[in-house]
């Protein structure tokens, strides 16, 4: 009987793909193949927005450092150079996150408030701070999201960040020549103010001795459990002519809009999946909490099993969780999951009690299956945090509510400590 039904289904679906349809699908496959082959390494995909913001801030500080270090014997020169930069009508630079495969982000700013961020993995954001208009282009899928009424930091705002300037380098690296220019290198061992680069080992800025402008920056970082990694800021151009069409907010031909509800966050009925693009992180103070967690490494697919271990452990200790389970994620080499517990709870290895301090956080609750579109959700979340003028200041955290067996009851609170960008 089973075979009959299976056979019927098989017969009902055994058709060949018509040649014209196959042509269309093969074209899609070719596009997809290109995307895959250009895909950045996983470690760079995980939190690109966080890195980008850190890097963006780093560049500004880097330019500032260059302005300070070279003419530091003459405060008049420094003031003049800083003023010159502040009055620049444009600023462009490229952050190379990875050399092979090439992963980079181009930044362009043009007064009075145009901004463009173009990622080598096919995402581009163009915005006009004077009108609050922005368009995000997703070249892989030929989609776009157009938004209005946004608070967009203008290039002037970015340049204003130059206020916090280090007074001197930790180390002079010597000279090198590049393209006929004589460069002088300076090293900082601590990240410049407001950059928040995690795991910074060295921040080397190379300054053109003739023009006193930053030529390029080499940043070496080493995150916990990871090999050292070097990134570069290059193609730095301040005040150079810039093509205005880079900031065109008109959707390119052939691109389809992803409709994003504007204004306040949507009210989403329980059980429905929230439109990822409608995510708006709420910034506010969150209270302290203690949790018993198990430190983890490797695939996040272990979350459910790990939580069961914590649950069983708490049962043996007769500790009742005071809230739904949660997880904090630094990377797949470093994450933890567990339950909030009453203050003063003790735990033995491999379990740990962790204290999450009260502080400024961004958060949003997303209804729908816990694992649903995690990458998309976090991308949109970080984008929202950054657009509101904040920077991530701690690990991503998820708090999962609802029933394990019923996706319709599930919701996820995404939360992340944040700090004001400037």
């Amino acid at each position, binding site marked *: 009987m089973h075979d009959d039904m299976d056979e*019927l289904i098989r017969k*009902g679906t055994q058709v*060949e*793909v018509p040649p*014209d349809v196959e042509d269309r699908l093969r074209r*899609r496959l070719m596009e997809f193949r290109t995307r895959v082959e250009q895909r950045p390494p996983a470690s760079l995909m995980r939190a690109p927005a966080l890195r980008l913001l850190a890097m963006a801030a780093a560049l500004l500080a880097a330019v500032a450092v260059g302005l300070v270090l070279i003419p530091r014997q003459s405060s008049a020169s420094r003031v003049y150079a800083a003023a010159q930069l502040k009055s620049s009508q444009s600023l462009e630079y490229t952050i190379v996150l990875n050399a092979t*495969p090439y992963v980079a982000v181009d930044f362009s700013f043009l007064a009075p408030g145009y901004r463009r961020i173009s990622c080598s993995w096919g995402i581009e954001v163009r915005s006009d701070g004077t009108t609050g208009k922005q368009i995000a282009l997703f070249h892989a899928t030929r989609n776009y999201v157009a938004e209005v009424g946004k608070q967009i930091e203008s290039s002037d705002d970015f340049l204003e960040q130059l206020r916090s300037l280090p007074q001197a380098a930790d180390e002079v690296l010597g000279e090198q020549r590049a393209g006929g220019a004589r460069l002088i290198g300076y090293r900082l061992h601590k990240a410049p103010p407001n950059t928040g680069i995690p795991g910074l080992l060295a921040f080397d800025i190379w300054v053109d001795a003739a023009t006193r402008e930053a030529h390029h920056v080499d940043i070496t970082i080493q995150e916990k459990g990871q090999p050292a990694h070097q990134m570069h800021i290059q193609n730095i151009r301040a005040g150079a002519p810039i093509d205005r069409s880079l900031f065109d907010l008109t959707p390119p031909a052939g691109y389809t809009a992803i409709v994003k509800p504007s204004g306040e966050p949507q009210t989403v009925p329980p059980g429905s999946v929230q439109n990822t693009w409608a995510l708006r992180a709420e910034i506010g103070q969150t209270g302290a909490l203690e949790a018993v967690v198990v430190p983890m490494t490797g*695939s996040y*697919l272990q979350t459910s099993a790990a939580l069961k271990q914590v649950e069983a452990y708490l049962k043996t200790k007769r500790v009742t969780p005071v809230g739904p389970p949660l997880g904090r994620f630094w990377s797949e080499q470093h994450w933890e999951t567990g339950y909030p517990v009453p203050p003063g709870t003790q735990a033995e290895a491999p379990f740990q009690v962790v204290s999450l301090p009260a502080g400024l956080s961004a958060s949003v609750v997303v209804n729908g299956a816990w694992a649903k579109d995690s990458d998309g959700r976090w991308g949109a979340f970080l984008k929202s945090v950054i657009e509101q003028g904040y920077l991530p200041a701690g690990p991503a955290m998820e708090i999962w509510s609802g029933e394990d067996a019923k996706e319709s009851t599930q919701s996820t609170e995404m939360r992340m400590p944040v700090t004001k960008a400037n």
Partner: protein
Amino acid sequence: MNDRQREYERLIAPIEDRMMRAVWRVSRDPDDTEDAFQEALLTVWKRWDRVRRHPNPHALVLHICINAAHDVLRRKVRRGKWLEAGAVPEDIPDSSASALQNIAGAECDAQVLQAIGLLSKNQARAILMHAVEEIPYGDIAAAMDCREATVRKHVARARARLRTLLAQQEEPSHA
């Protein structure tokens, strides 16, 4: 050939034809198929790291394709577009044999597909992977991220529900 090219050759290239067929067999409309296929590729792209590490990446990718195609089918059936398009004949050949035999004629695919469109997501995906793609239960379980017993349950329920739905489709012709 770089790492990414090697990954594509290992993960996608061997099943390109199966991916296209899996979507077309369920969507059956050029535009819908292209949309569903694109949606599936986008999902695969987003979950690339998971696909790379998956014990049976081919099953996972086919599962994603079937999901996307089934979503299209469900929408079509729910909107009634399926019926409007005349894909399901009103008259089913009369026969004294079982409902299954009655619809085994030329129109059976449309009715079978419509019935699949009325199944729950898990049931439809499990039965399509099992009966159409002939993927072993263990691999389906890995792709659906559940236990093998759960997949078997989904398949059994899908068969039962399909039987009922197909029998219901037959009834009007006897009225």
